[in-house]
């Protein structure tokens, strides 16, 4: 382990110089760049053999330089030898990790973290707990369905009331009209009755 750390240090320092020199890339000759790459390749190859290869799931690049570089980036995350049976939850990347490509480190960390969680769930799985969880899920589902039905009914009730109101308003209007008409009819009748009329004329 100690060896890996030291090499990581030495490489990081050289690659940080690489990043610095990146801006000067135009001035540097191609030969120098290749030399630096050679150094990285040799070092990472050396460590690659020591690491458990099973725990590097995402290195399917065709470009050989690229895949080796990825290995190298993976290295600090897998510093500890993980136990062969379960998928390991990697330690947070130590300070020596390169910052050349921080995005890739972060995503790889997330990926392995997800992988680790999945493993945890599996290990807890037994017939009992599975049944339990299903039971809980069923209860929650029932509650949710009950709430949904309740929501439907709430609206339905208010709608019912509104319909009733509309119906009653119509009825009310109709009845009022009827009353008006009756009153008018009565009024005209009353008028005719008020004026004196000859109904019968006496013979004398």
């Amino acid at each position, binding site marked *: 382990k100690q060896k890996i750390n030291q090499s990581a240090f030495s490489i990081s320092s050289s690659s940080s110089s690489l990043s610095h020199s990146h801006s000067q890339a135009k001035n540097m000759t191609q030969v120098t760049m290749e030399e630096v790459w050679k150094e990285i390749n040799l070092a990472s190859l050396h460590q690659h053999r020591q690491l458990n290869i099973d725990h590097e799931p995402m290195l399917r690049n065709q470009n050989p330089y690229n895949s080796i570089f990825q290995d190298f980036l993976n290295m600090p995350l897998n510093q500890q030898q993980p136990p062969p049976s379960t998928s390991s939850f990697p330690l947070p990347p130590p300070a020596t990790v390169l910052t050349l490509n921080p995005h890739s480190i972060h995503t790889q960390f997330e990926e392995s973290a997800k992988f680790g969680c999945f493993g945890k769930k599996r290990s807890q799985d037994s017939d009992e707990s599975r049944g339990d969880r299903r039971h809980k899920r069923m209860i*929650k589902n029932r*509650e*949710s*369905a009950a*709430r*949904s039905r*309740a*929501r*439907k*009914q*709430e*609206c339905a*009730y*208010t709608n019912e009331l509104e319909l009733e109101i509309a119906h009653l308003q119509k009825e009310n209007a109709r009845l009022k009209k009827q009353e008006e008409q009756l009153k008018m009819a009565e009024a005209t009748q009353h008028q005719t009755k008020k004026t004196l009329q000859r109904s019968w004329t006496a013979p004398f």
Partner: protein
Amino acid sequence: MSHARDPLVVGRVVPDVLELFTRSISLRVTYGQREVTNGLDLRPSQVLNKPRVDIGGEDLRNFYTLVMVDPDVPSPSNPHLREYLHWLVTDIPATTGTNFGNEIVSYESPRPTSGIHRIVLVLFRQLGRQTVYEPGWRQNFNTREFAAIYNLGLPVAAVFFNCQRESGCGGRRS
């Protein structure tokens, strides 16, 4: 009227938040042009600002307290933070509205992230003008306890609406 069909009971506001009570004062809550009826579906964008609240009653000497809570926090299937206090206004004179009261806890607009939340507005009659102390925090509020502490008795009116996040699908398909 059968209590079983009361929307407050159907929606489980009674007993989740309140005891069973009889309405005696009118309570009108309006967001913009929309008057809140029980079970109305409103989205956060529609309840950003405090609503207009008009209460009934006859005697201007009576004062009322309005409480607005969300009992379904953080989600209706797991409401372990029940209730969340959104608004608290006291000393509202009868026949007026919240504008004439004392805003103890300022209006915070509902912003549910998970599930469909019931947002309840409750009106209590006060025994007289009284000092109400604002709670230390909004979550884990208990309307029943609050009413007991300040001797508010049973509610005189209540209304609730359903609120879900803006892009919510509206609940289950029928």
